[in-house]
């Protein structure tokens, strides 16, 4: 005001130096905000881009398509087709057959290569190829003596070469592949013997040992996660809802209630690894439940997600207007009836939304699982039934991803990223269901 008075020649419309400085500061401040938002979004794009660009490789896999003569002289030396004798031939007996078949295929197609021995084909084929052939022969012994066409897994080096992970300039010290073998691979791709296809085994298969990344799949640990989620759902939904109903509808204002409330809000902030310690000490050390079992994992994750479920359930109960309760009480319902017959059904969409989000949190959690032994375990066996699904050692999706990330062969990293894509797909699905539930059933009072 005094500025205007002392400078009668200058109107309010023209800016002096100070006003310009202030406006520049305003623009700068605003730009910081835009930059912060942009940083967040760019980081999100980079993160998702990294996941997708690194992970899609896991869904493609190189295969070798060859006709193999199942030589009776090798596979059934006594010639009596007795299944017990056939089972005695280990995978070491089958591997040369596949190698010879590949060599024969190369000669038949007239491909020039300095590699002349069947043994030199070893690095092109996965070591699981022999097991694949053996499984077929044991299932159908009458196949012995016939020529059967197989679609065998290529070795992880060949697979990596197709995907650009293994390059000619980097393999000088690699004893699992040579330049001649890569030349041969190129020729075989040209000839259509080595093909690349969708890798269903990655989604449904089991984990494989350290030396066979091409065979590793996430299917078994997916089942482990599923069994854990069943435990979490079965325990955390009823307990969470019961606890919330008590706190929201019945609890008197006293010390016990305060204590419970403080405990719940503190538990929500306890680091997840501490829940792992709890699980280790209480469920495994004290109660002697089996290590690495999805049941124990589920119990630990239940305790971890309970605060989340309780907090969202209470919010859902709180959103039901008191007039509903009053109306129920007014027509003679007991307090319990008004809650269970009227408030709870109205709050159910909100409760389910919160529970699904809690489950999503539990599904992605890794740290507590490390402590109860769901890592360092090669999940190769599918659970045999319900009891075995809950009690037998298994892995879980995030634990399996961690396991792959720790292994030395970079071929496993691709699997880890691929596993993350599957994990994120599940999380996305759960979140979309939660959003749809909220959209569909949310009521504004």
């Amino acid at each position, binding site marked *: 005001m005094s500025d205007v008075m002392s400078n009668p020649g200058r109107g309010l419309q023209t800016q002096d130096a100070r006003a310009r400085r202030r406006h520049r500061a305003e623009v700068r401040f605003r730009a910081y905000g835009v930059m*912060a938002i942009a940083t967040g979004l760019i980081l999100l794009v980079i993160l998702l881009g990294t996941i997708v660009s690194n992970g899609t490789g896991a869904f493609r896999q190189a295969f070798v398509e060859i006709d193999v003569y199942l030589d009776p002289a090798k596979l059934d030396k006594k010639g009596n087709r007795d299944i017990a004798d056939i089972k005695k031939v280990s995978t070491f007996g089958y591997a040369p057959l596949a190698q010879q078949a590949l060599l024969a295929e190369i000669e038949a197609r007239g491909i020039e290569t300095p590699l002349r021995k069947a043994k030199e084909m070893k690095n092109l084929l996965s070591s699981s190829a022999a097991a694949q052939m053996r499984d077929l022969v044991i299932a159908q012994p009458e196949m012995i003596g016939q020529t059967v066409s197989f679609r065998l897994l290529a070795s992880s080096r060949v697979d990596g070469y197709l995907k650009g992970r293994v390059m000619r300039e980097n393999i000088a010290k690699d004893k699992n592949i040579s330049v001649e073998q890569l030349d041969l691979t190129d020729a075989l791709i040209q000839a259509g013997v080595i093909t690349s296809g969708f890798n269903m085994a990655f989604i449904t298969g089991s984990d494989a040992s350290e030396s066979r990344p091409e065979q590793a799949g996430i299917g078994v640990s997916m089942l482990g996660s599923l069994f854990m989620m069943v435990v979490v759902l079965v325990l955390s939904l009823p307990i969470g809802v019961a606890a919330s109903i008590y706190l929201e509808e019945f609890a008197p204002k006293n010390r016990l209630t305060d204590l419970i409330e403080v405990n719940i809000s*503190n538990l929500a902030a*306890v680091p997840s690894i501490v829940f792992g310690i709890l699980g280790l000490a209480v469920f495994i*050390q004290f109660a002697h439940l089996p290590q690495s079992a999805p049941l124990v994992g589920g119990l630990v994750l239940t305790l971890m997600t309970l605060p989340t479920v309780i907090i969202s359930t209470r919010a859902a109960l709180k959103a039901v207007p008191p007039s509903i309760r009053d109306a129920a009480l007014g027509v003679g319902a007991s307090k*319990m009836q008004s809650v269970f017959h009227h408030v709870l059904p109205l709050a159910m969409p909100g409760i389910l939304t919160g529970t699904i989000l809690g489950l999503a949190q539990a599904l992605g959690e890794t740290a507590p699982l490390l402590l109860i032994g769901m890592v360092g375990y090669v999940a190769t066996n599918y659970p045999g039934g319900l009891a075995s699904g809950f009690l037998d050692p298994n892995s879980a999706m995030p634990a399996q991803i961690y396991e792959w990330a720790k292994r030395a062969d970079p071929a496993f990293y691709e699997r880890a990223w691929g596993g993350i894509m599957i994990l994120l797909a599940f999380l996305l699905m759960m979140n979309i269901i939660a959003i749809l539930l909220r959209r569909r059933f949310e009521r504004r009072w």
Partner: protein
Amino acid sequence: MPALWLLLILILLGVIGYVVGRARAVRSAGGNVSDLHSLPNHYGSFVALSVVVPALTVMLIWLLAQPLVLNAIVSTDFPVVAIPENASVDLVMSDVRRIAEGLDKAEAQGVLDQSPLNTIADDAGALRGMLAGVGVALGADVTPEVLSASQSYRALAASGQGMMTGLVLLVALVGFAYAIRRTHKEFRARNVVEAGIKTLLIFAASIAILTTIGIVLSLIFNTLHFFRLHPASDFFQGLVWAPSFGGGSELGVLPLLWGTLYISLIALIVAVPVGLFAAIYLSEYATPGVRAFAKPLIEILAGIPTIVYGLFALLTVGPMLMSVFGRDGLGWMQAGTAVITAGLVMGIMLIPFVSSLSDDIINAVPQSLRDGSYALGSTQSETIRQVVLPAALPGIVGAILLAASRAIGETMIVVLGAGAAARLDLNPFEAMTTVTAKIVSQLTGDADFASPEALVAFALGMTLFVITLALNVVALMIVRTYREQYE
């Protein structure tokens, strides 16, 4: 799985009880339901609850107590002379339990062979081989004393199982009979059932307290056990972290705490400015359209599991930093796993945490304060800096403390991204390690819970629990104390 069968039988009895109780009540009123004090369903529920709840309680208590009681019985019978020099009773008992478990498994799989059990004195290796065959690996050959102890353990466990089944069924049937006897049209079933349900609700709510008690007890007992083996002063004041499972470890917590705090600090340096400015922009400047688009997208970062960030640190950010600061670049960095790697990635993870908490707090500042400031002629940024932020400051400090507590407790990013060496160093390009990463490394693998090297993890967990709890309490206190100042 007998416990599972017992559970199914109990549920079945409950259902039968419901049907019978309901029918009896209706019959007692001569089919005229309006003569009953309560609804027919209440009478049914009364019988079902009386059957299931006491029996289930007995079963749970028994299942929890049985291992303890068995342990006590078998270990008092165990001859003291048979305990090896450098082992404790606990250690021998864990062997006994493992063997008992192995024998049970062998029996279940039908491969239990009596001959190694009888020839134990001559051929100690045979039993070990058989147990290894069913997946129970033993560290040493079985001595006859341990074998006899584990045989008596199995016998006791079997009879305990039988006794439990009998007792649980007895309790269930007594409950059934009692409830049926009381079921009559005059009986106030609704009041009893509702009181029972309320008790169950209170129990469910108390699980939060039980969990906390469980956490505290499991940490305290093992921590005390650790401090008996390893002096507490060495743990809290030690500058060296060098565990060796052979003995003679130096277990000082300070290098781990330093690593934890250093990584968290870097994470906060990344997350606080970005998160805070994002929150300011979203709440003060952004149009509703931009807000509806950007806010959920940024919050996606919070929904991504930490294992993903860990992998991102290990395989993407680490190599990227190496190409700039590593041997080919500035030469500051030895390996991709370092404080800076873990700190940066953790910072990304915390951005949405800081931004959504601050967003709520900034939105809670009353509009009248802003209007007053505009009326005095200040620009929007001046209003934010000099009016809105000071008003929101306590809440923002609380949010930052919560983010710090999240950073300190974070595990997967540091396990994968920070390296394994514990050191006290100022260089952010060095590998360091944290409390959480060491908890994982000390407790995974074949942990022998009796050694100080494994037990130290519980002391670390205790430290972590106390620090994060204190941060949360302080954060909540700040928020609560200053929250209503402007309302």
